Structures are given as C-alpha cells and as structure tokens.
C-alpha cells in the first residue's frame, strides 16, 4: 500500500491511549494488558486509511475523525443521567428479550435485565466483569490486526474498550431468549463498545446489537461510536445476529464485525438507518468444511447522510456456502457505498456463494457506489453476484394511485416493499414489524432535515 493511502494519527494520541488504558476494566490482568498494549502499537503503526486507500475510496475517515482526536482517549464516565423514555422507542415491539443497556460504552444495571450466568459456563451479560480474569473463550488476539479491513480505529477500540456484550453458550446449549444489547451515546461523547459472542459446538443464540443516541436538543453535536464485535462459531453452532444502527443525524458510527466460523451457521441482519456517517465492515471467515454464512443488510439514507458498508467473506475450506443480500434506499443528497468482496481460496472447492446488492434511488441528488469483488482460486465453485441501481417504477406508482393511493403513500408503499425483501429474511416477526415502522419514519425525517 502506498504511503499516501495511510495517514498517521496525530502525535500524542498513542501515549494518551497508554495512559488511559490504566484506568480501564481488567487493567492489571496480564493477558488483557498485553492485548491493549499491542493494540496501541498497531494503532501507531497502521495509521488511518485515507481516500487513496482502495477500501476507503468514498469515505473520508481522516476528515470524519478530525474533531474527535482530542476526545478519542477520554470515553465518558459511566454515570450518565438521561430520560429512560428513550428506551421505549427502541423496544422491538413485543419481542421477549434479555435487555442490556450501555450508555457511552458503560453498562447501566438499573435499566438492564440481570446477566445470565449458568454453572455450565453459559453467560450473557456485560463484558467488563469478565475482564479481571478473562475466560478462555474470550478472544484477545493481537493477530487480528492482520485480518481483512482492519484499520487503526479498530485498534483504538482494542486499546480503549470499556464494556459491551459478552455471550458464551456451551456445547449443545441455547440461550433461552434473544439478548438485546442497546448502546446509547450522548452528544459529544466517544464510546468504544466491544462485543464478544462465542458459541461452542451445536450451541444456539440470537443476539441483537442496537445503536442509538440521546441527542441533546440544544446541540448540533453528535456522538462517535467506535464498535467492534468478535464472533466465533464452532461446528454445528447457530447464531442469528441483528445489528441495528439507528443513530441520530449528527452521529458518527464506525463498526466492525469479525466472524470466525469453525463450522455452523451464521446469519447477520445488518440494518443501517441513522448517523451522519456510518461505516460498517463485516468480515467472515469460513474455516471448516460445510460452514454456512448469510449476510443480509439494509441501508436507508436521506438528507446528507453517508453510509458505507464493506463486507468480506473468505472461503478457506471446501463445501462452505455464503449468501449475501443487501439492499439500499437513498433519498435526498445521501451517499451510499456497498462493497462485497468474496475470496475463494484454492482449498475451497465446492464453494457455493451468491451475492446481490440492489439499490433504490429516490432522488436525483443521491449517489450510490456499489461494487462486487470476487477473487476465486479454486476451479469447482459456484459464485453468483449482481448489483443493481434503480428508481421507483412509474407503472407501479400509477397503478397504486389509480386505486386511490396518494402519490406520497404510493412511493412509501413501494419503498417499503423494496426494503421488505431484506426484512422478510429475518426470523423474528417482531423485529421485522419494528423496522418497517422505524425505517419509514427515518426516511421522512431525513427528508425534512434537507428541506
């Protein structure tokens, strides 16, 4: 990579990081300290990708980070007071879930259900209490910096994370109900949420990450979320993973999901609705024969929103399958980026992979850059891909209006129908119904911001 593709972080940030580490949960544990130290080193070494970097061609990370450098290493204290009513809007209809609330990256026990801890090692709760004696399943691996799409802010997360969701399900067990981890960020605050999900052989779970913010009404300032999730599935494990990003119009969201599969079935349902800027990287590695991975995604952006989703699936082993289905709805002057890279290594014969990305563009000023990337080094594989960009169909609009739909209702109905194809793949109808409602009001609100 040429030098201009990377920018060094401002001087002083790395030393500040080292100082900040000492006050973080688990400090003093050798394993964790070594990991955090290695992350600081990586941060200093790897730098911040600029728009010259192929993976960051459309998203100007250095510019986004400029106002945040001075605060990057000073995550908010965990004693925030706020109107808990904000949580009502995040309730996934009547889904019965174990709710865990984090505010600015700190667990909020008063608003949360009790952690789940079984004698057999089953755990679903906050991560921080585990850090004084990290269990063996907790991946604290500095080598992760070699993984695809890894960048300096991911390392910053490793150095500075305060808390997040931890789930471990032992072999053959299942979580009794979905875990819903809600991450709330307040105006002007930086948070580095860190999530670890580990499913042993044959284990099953549903995990929901939900990102939202508490916007101070008098401030135009947003929050910075810098989230990382590490997920590991053993053979026969099944994980349904919802990731709902519903931040406010001034917030910045950087997210990374890294999935390592020694088999099993992983299904992601990644929905990006909010944020002034959102960049999500999903990286899945299929390491063992027969593993299956499904990435479903929906991004909706209006106004001046920028949303960028990069996915990468590595087929290392034979006879694995991957299905990728992403859709985008763009209005106003929004800009969306989708990049789906699939790599099939020489050993991965009989790979069965399909990827599609469809985009609905509602305004002339919106922009979408979509790119499928296939690298195939095996000869007996099936790899399908397709990307489309289209507008609402004039015949369908007229048909609905001729049946009495107002123009706005007809547009809305067709937009929902378009997005519904992603939602229909979600196994929980409560989440689907919730997103239909929220997605629509998001688009309407984004339109108002622009007007």
């Amino acid at each position, binding site marked *: 990579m040429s030098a201009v593709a990377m920018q060094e972080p401002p001087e002083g940030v790395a030393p500040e990081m080292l100082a900040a580490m000492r006050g973080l949960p688990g400090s003093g544990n050798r394993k964790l300290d070594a990991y955090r130290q290695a992350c600081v080193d990586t941060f200093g070494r790897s730098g911040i990708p600029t728009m010259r970097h192929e993976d960051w061609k459309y998203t100007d990370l250095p510019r986004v980070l400029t106002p945040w450098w001075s605060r990057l290493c000073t995550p908010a204290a965990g004693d925030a007071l706020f109107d808990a009513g904000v949580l009502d809007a995040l309730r996934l209809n009547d889904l019965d879930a174990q709710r865990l609330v984090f505010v600015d990256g700190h667990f909020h026990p008063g608003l949360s259900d009790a952690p789940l801890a079984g004698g057999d090692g089953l755990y679903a709760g906050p991560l921080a209490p585990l850090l004084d004696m990290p269990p063996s399943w907790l991946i604290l691996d500095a080598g992760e910096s070699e993984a695809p799409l890894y960048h300096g802010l991911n390392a910053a997360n490793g150095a500075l994370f305060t808390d997040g969701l931890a789930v471990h399900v032992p072999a053959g067990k299942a979580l009794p109900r979905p875990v819903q981890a809600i991450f709330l960020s307040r105006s002007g605050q930086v948070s580095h949420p860190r999530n670890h999900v580990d499913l042993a052989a044959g284990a099953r779970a549903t995990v929901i990450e939900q990102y939202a913010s508490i916007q101070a009404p008098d401030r135009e300032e947003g929050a910075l979320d810098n989230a990382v999730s590490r997920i590991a599935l053993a053979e026969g494990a099944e994980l349904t993973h919802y990731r709902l990003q519903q931040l406010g119009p001034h917030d910045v969201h950087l997210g990374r999901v890294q999935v390592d599969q020694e088999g099993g079935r992983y299904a992601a349902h990644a929905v990006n609705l909010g944020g002034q800027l959102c960049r999500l990287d999903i990286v899945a590695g299929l390491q063992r024969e027969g593993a299956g991975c499904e990435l479903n995604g929906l991004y909706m952006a209006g106004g001046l929103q920028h949303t960028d989703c990069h996915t990468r699936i590595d087929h290392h082993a034979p006879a694995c399958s991957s299905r990728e289905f992403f859709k985008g709805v763009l209005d106003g002057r929004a800009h969306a980026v989708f990049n789906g890279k699939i790599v099939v290594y020489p050993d991965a014969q009989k790979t069965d992979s399909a990827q599609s990305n469809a985009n609905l563009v509602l305004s002339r000023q919106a922009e979408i850059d979509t790119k499928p990337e296939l690298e195939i080094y095996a000869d007996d594989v099936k790899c399908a891909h397709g990307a489309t960009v289209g507008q609402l*169909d*004039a*015949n*369908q609009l*007229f*048909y*609905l*209006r*001729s*049946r*009495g*739909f*107002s*123009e706005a*209702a*007809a547009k809305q*109905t*067709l937009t*929902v*129908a*378009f997005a*519904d*194809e992603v939602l229909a793949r979600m196994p929980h109808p409560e989440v689907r119904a919730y997103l239909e409602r929220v997605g629509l009001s998001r688009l309407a609100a984004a339109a108002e911001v622009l007007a």
Partner: protein
Amino acid sequence: MLKIEDLHAAVDGKPILKGINLEVGAGEVHAIMGPNGSGKSTLSNVIAGRDGYEVTRGSITYNGRDLLAMSPEERAWEGVFLAFQYPVEIPGVNNVYLLKAGLNAKRKHQGLPELDAIDFMGLVRDKASLVQLDPDFLKRSVNEGFSGGEKKRNEIFQMAVLEPRLAILDETDSGLDIDALRIVADGVNKLRSPERSIVMVTHYQRLLDYIEPDVVHVLADGRILKSGDKRLARELESRGYEWVLEEAAA
C-alpha cells in the same frame, strides 16, 4: 356522468387523439371499438390520468367537474376506475393491503369511517366469489405470478371492491380464453347498475356477446367516426373497420 369535448392528446409530441366527443350517461354501458393504433388505450389512460399523455385541447367533465384538473388518486376517490390492459405486478405489496388502503383512502375522502380489518375481509371474500377468485390469492403480492386470466379477474375484483361510478375497461378481454372471458363478463354484468357507467375499450366484438352495450362507437385515427347500437358491433365483426373509414372519408 362523463362528457368529453373536442379532446386532443399527444404522446411524446405525437398527436394521438384528434377531437374526441363522447357523452356517457349514468348507468350506460358504452363500447369503444377500433383498429390497433386508433387511440383506444390513449383515451383510457387520459381519463385515468396517467403521466406522459398530454392533453393539447378540449375538456373532460365528470359529474360536472373538470376531470383533467384532478390527480389520478382524486379521480379514484371520486369514483373513476381503470381496469388495466396490462395489470402491473407489484412484488412485496399484497392484494389485501392494496385494496384496504385504496378503499379507505376513498372512504376518508367521502367523509366515511375507515373499514376495520374484519368488515373489510368480509367484504373482500364476498367480492372475490364474484369473479371466482380463490381467497388465498388475497395474501399474495399484487398480480405477481398471476396468469393473464387471473390478472384480468383481479382487475374486475378490484372494481367490485372499490365500487366506482365510472369504470373504464381497457382491453379487458385480451389474452383471455373463453372460460375466463365468461367469468370476467359475468362479474362485470353483476356490477352493472343504474348509478354506474361502464366504458369498454376493445378490439374484438366477442366481449360484447357477453356484456351487452347500450352504445357502440368506432374510434379510428383519434376520432370517433361512427356510433350506433349493438348491431354496429356485429357489422364490424363481419365487415371489418375499412368501410367505416371509407364512409367517414367520403
């Protein structure tokens, strides 16, 4: 009910309708016949308000109001219904939703309360039997994967639910086999009433064997050249359109 005067319309700048005059009274059934390219579908689309059809002269008055000043949805609320020649497939929008939203928008416009789910489903089941539609299809996406015959039956079913005062049937007989044609025609006949006017646009006479019109018009080259009763349709069937054109030219 409907009064069209000296209507001129163009598509992409090309004149298609060149002075249509037509009056349809309440409860009347009119058939508009004509060769391909005569402007039949353009007339249907202008009445329903489709984009891309530019009215360059003339007027359409509907129940005393200027129809051309109304949006497509206002026309629907006021009781205008177009049965499409090519019904549109809308994946992801189911039939029940389409009809419930359409009907309730119309009721709201009329100052009537919206129908609740139970009343609505009762209504819909009644009307579905009118055109022998399997109620299961209601849960399916609008016209998606429907056969040609099912699509046309669905149009008439929608007409039954929305209860228009003026229904334009655009080539409703095209693409139908004889059994489907009979079912569709039976459905239309059951919807005939003194308050409801129907304009059938068709290329063939055979639809008129099943739905008997009060008036038959011959449309050619953008004008109505001849009008008569149902015997005119029979004559067209046996003699073709040529003689009407020649007669008009003379």
